[in-house]
């Protein structure tokens, strides 16, 4: 697939929303982040820290209030198949079979026939070769998310945006899917940006972990994960990084260190 491009440059980005009661809500405050082509970046933070908003901005589903957001050096002005997104809910089209779902993107571009073989190959690659004629409601949660992945990957995206794609899965399926996503990422080579609230998942999968804090959404720290893949979830280096990340989180969230009662 396309490995020539897929870099993202975010400079002094702000995003405000109009709140329900009239005054504005500062969702993202002064975000500066540079993501190299082919990198796997995880964005972690508690809910309300703006991590999903940031992902939506990269996808082009929303536009920045100020600052710059460049994709391969060009400002992002709207959604593009080159920045594919997988949501927490697989969002498969219920009226299309698995195969038709995967072929949705190419069909929109009028390239259904040319990509027929690629669609079948991707279905097989994500392990859905035997289910291409099933309806979405017949799939399990993990299978549906595989189909959603294939549907995005068939578009040959330069950037793969993952918005808590495994958040709704049980932990066994979840770990299997983490390996699955890593395998596809390594094989197809897109830049990957994943939002998650699972610290282990972030360490296990990514090259860099971006930690965000809420109200307003800011980047508090970026930690490089220099562990070779495949990673050992129980290894010493892994656990040390985990402890460090947790520490950052406690600091970032200012959990009172002393109990609120005294003896």
């Amino acid at each position, binding site marked *: 697939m396309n490995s020539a491009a897929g870099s993202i440059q975010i400079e002094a980005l702000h995003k405000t929303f109009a709140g329900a009661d009239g005054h504005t809500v500062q969702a993202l405050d002064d975000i500066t982040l540079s993501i190299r082509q082919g990198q796997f970046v995880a964005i972690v933070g508690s809910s309300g820290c703006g991590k999903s908003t940031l992902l939506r901005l990269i996808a082009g589903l929303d536009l920045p209030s100020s600052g710059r957001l460049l994709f391969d050096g060009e400002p992002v002005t709207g*959604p593009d198949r080159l920045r594919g997104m997988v*949501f927490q809910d697989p969002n498969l*089209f219920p009226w299309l079979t698995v195969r038709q779902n995967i072929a949705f993107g190419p069909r*929109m571009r009028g390239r259904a026939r040319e990509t027929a073989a690629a669609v079948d190959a991707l279905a097989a690659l994500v392990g859905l070769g035997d289910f291409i004629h099933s309806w979405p409601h017949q799939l399990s949660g993990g299978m549906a998310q595989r189909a959603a992945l294939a549907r995005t990957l068939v578009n040959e995206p330069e950037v793969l*945006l993952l918005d808590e794609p495994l958040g709704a899965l049980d932990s066994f399926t979840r770990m299997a899917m983490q390996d699955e996503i890593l395998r596809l990422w390594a094989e197809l080579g897109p830049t990957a940006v994943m939002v998650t609230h699972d610290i282990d998942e972030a360490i296990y999968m990514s090259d860099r972990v971006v930690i965000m804090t809420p109200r307003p959404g800011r980047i508090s720290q970026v930690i490089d994960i220099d562990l070779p893949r495949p990673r050992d979830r129980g290894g010493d280096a892994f656990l040390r990084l985990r402890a460090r990340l947790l520490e950052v989180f406690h600091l970032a969230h200012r959990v009172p260190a002393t109990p609120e009662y005294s003896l």
Partner: protein
Amino acid sequence: MKRPGLKVETLITLDTVASILLAWELVTRFKLVTDILLPSPGTVWTTFLQIRAEGYKDHSLLQHLAASLGRLGAAFALVVVTAIPLGLWSGCNSKVSAVLDPLVEFVRPLPPLAYYTLLVLWLGIENGSKIALLALAGFPPVFIACVAGVKRVKGDLLQCARTLGASQGQLFLHVVFPACLPDIFTGLRTALGVTYSTLVAAEMVAAITGIGWMVLDASKFLRSDVIFVGIILMGLTGILLDRALRLIEVKAVPWKEKNR
């Protein structure tokens, strides 16, 4: 979903029909009411065979049925090609909805007979006014179902389609429309019921054909046996039409069965 050969519920339904027929037969057999008020099942059956063989007032039974179904079909087609696109458009665009919604809200509760005379004056006494009447009755349910359908389309599904490269037009055609199909069919079935029940009213004025007209004509002569034949035929045709629409729905919305 288990599918046994014959469900208990089906037997109960058949039993109910049989009981009603039996009660009907007994009431007439023992002359509990006069023939004019309630003809016996046998008389109705004989009348049916007679009408089928000789027709009713210059037209065969088939012609009467065809006349009614023709009007119904034309009106229904008119509803399909107007109410579906306008309803979907109105659901997508608040300005369009600002124009159309109040009009539909106004027409919807009106009894069709209230404006039928006007339609006859404007469109003539032929089929045009009858079809228009049926179409006006059938328009609101389909329109409203389409608007509701669009409102129910998940926003995530639309955004997902956008990230996959769908343009605005493609969003409408490939996401909004198929997502609304189940609602559209619900609207169509409601509309079928409404237009069908308006049919008799439509055939009251200056018709010489149609099942509805046959019943009304028979009423003038107190031919209760003919009235019964007409009513039973209308009832059965109504059920058949609804079944047909459901069959089309299963073909057009194959994903619906277990998903909703």
